[in-house]
């Protein structure tokens, strides 16, 4: 593969621009089950167990768990400056939107390619929610 950027269109839910390293989860995420002081996923059976989602471009299918804990979880991470830099999801629900608005984390969906095929953990990704563009730079 050539060292070319892949540009995908996306749908803005919560605005902003962010750039960073991708972390991909094929399972839904509950932010309450991460350590608010480190950003490490504590849910033992989760595929990201032990991984750190702080300041990553987080790619995952959807949120999960009750509204109270989900929002408080992401908000606490944000208070410690450990929230993901941006979030790319497949299915949105109201609770995840509210979480992202409160924590001020850019959130996009509807990429014009399957995000799990286009993006892999370690890729350098830029999310421009304002322009509706996700740029992926493959890891060399």
């Amino acid at each position, binding site marked *: 593969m050539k060292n070319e950027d892949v540009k995908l269109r996306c749908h803005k*839910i919560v605005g902003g621009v962010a750039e960073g390293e991708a972390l991909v989860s094929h399972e839904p995420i509950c932010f309450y089950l991460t350590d608010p002081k480190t950003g490490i996923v504590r849910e033992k059976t989760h595929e990201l167990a032990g991984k750190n989602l702080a300041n990553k471009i987080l790619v995952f299918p959807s949120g999960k768990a009750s509204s*109270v804990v989900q929002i408080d979880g992401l908000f606490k991470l944000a*208070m410690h400056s450990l929230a993901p830099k941006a979030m790319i999801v497949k299915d*949105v*629900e*109201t*609770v995840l*939107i*509210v979480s992202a608005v409160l924590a001020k984390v850019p959130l996009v969906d509807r990429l014009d390619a399957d995000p799990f095929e286009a993006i892999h953990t370690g890729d350098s990704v830029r999310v421009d929610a304002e322009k509706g563009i996700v740029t992926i730079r493959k890891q060399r």
Partner: protein
Amino acid sequence: MNLTREEERILAGELGEGMKTAMELLVAIGDAFDAEKMIPISRAHAASSGQEGDMYFVELLAKGGAKCRVPTSTNPVYDIELFHRLFKVPKEEAEVARRVMEAYKKVGAILSWSCLPYLTENIPLYGETVAFSESSATPYVNSVIGATTNREAAQSALAAGVMGKTPLYGLHIKENRKGTVQIKVEASLKNSFGYTLLGQFVGEEVGYGIPVLTGIKKRPNTEELINFCAMSNTSGAVSMFHIPGVTVEAPTIKDAFQGDTPKESITVTNADLQRTWEKLQSARGGKIDFVMLGCPHYTLKQIGQTAELIEGKKIHKGVAFWICTSATTRKLAERMGYVETVEKAGGGIVVDTCIDEPCWTVYRDQVGMTDSPKCAYYRRFKDVIVASLEQCVEAAVKGEYT
């Protein structure tokens, strides 16, 4: 999204920062779901929680001068004075609770501090458009009452209450209210705890979706439906369900699926519910330190049942026994003599709170027993046994579960 002139002005901040913040959140949600416009709501329920994310948003609205335009009730937090007398509550935690309660008062919410507002303090009617957060409230209001609400977060419900509006999307649209999966109930559902386990099972199996329950022989009562709602919307995200012949939008199974044939069906047997029950236990039995009932809040009927079971008995030395309920229900329970009966036996009935509040940290390293998988799910204590009310009372008296 098409906004009216007034909505545009609110978004531009002309009616204050609080209203602007609420509108920004509603517009973000509307845009995410391609909502065409805002629609009026008649009431809201904010699942306030006395936690930091909750405090941040309600204070932002309160400081910005926002006031609820439609009746907006609130979820449990806790009575700081009472808990300071009972145990030590960490100072920082109590301060968060105090600020949250003050801010909800300032925005003009109904200070119900109850998770069952739809029974007493803030009751929607059939066909109303509302914004109700809280696990049992969302599915109960949609399915049992037949008002329409999405699966709101505390903040989106509060924003809707302040604005008197919500984006037109999801369960406010009739086509989205049709069943997605048939649940063939072969389990016998002998008592109300059966509905608790059924809710737990259905939520786990369905995840997001609208289950249609068939094969239920005896009509469920209010408490059984409340428990089904709370559990299925905690173990899964069930915002609505149908029971043909019982819930209002489905006189028949055909109505439940809006004329379509179900694509998927799941059968649930006694053995499935037994397995669901076993999976909930983190302790096998033995000595217990406390019993926690009332998640969701106990109704007057459930408090009466508890009083009847415990009358003339003594709760074992060293075991704490709590029932959580609303202030209005406790008042009636006092009048009926239930409070006195429970207190004489050594238990307590506490208002305005919930197991998921930091006021209970004293039980963090102890073994608890409850009739609610939702209460167990919060994991505010070391080990938990989930069983029926009768078994909880029996264990409280014996000091152990066998």
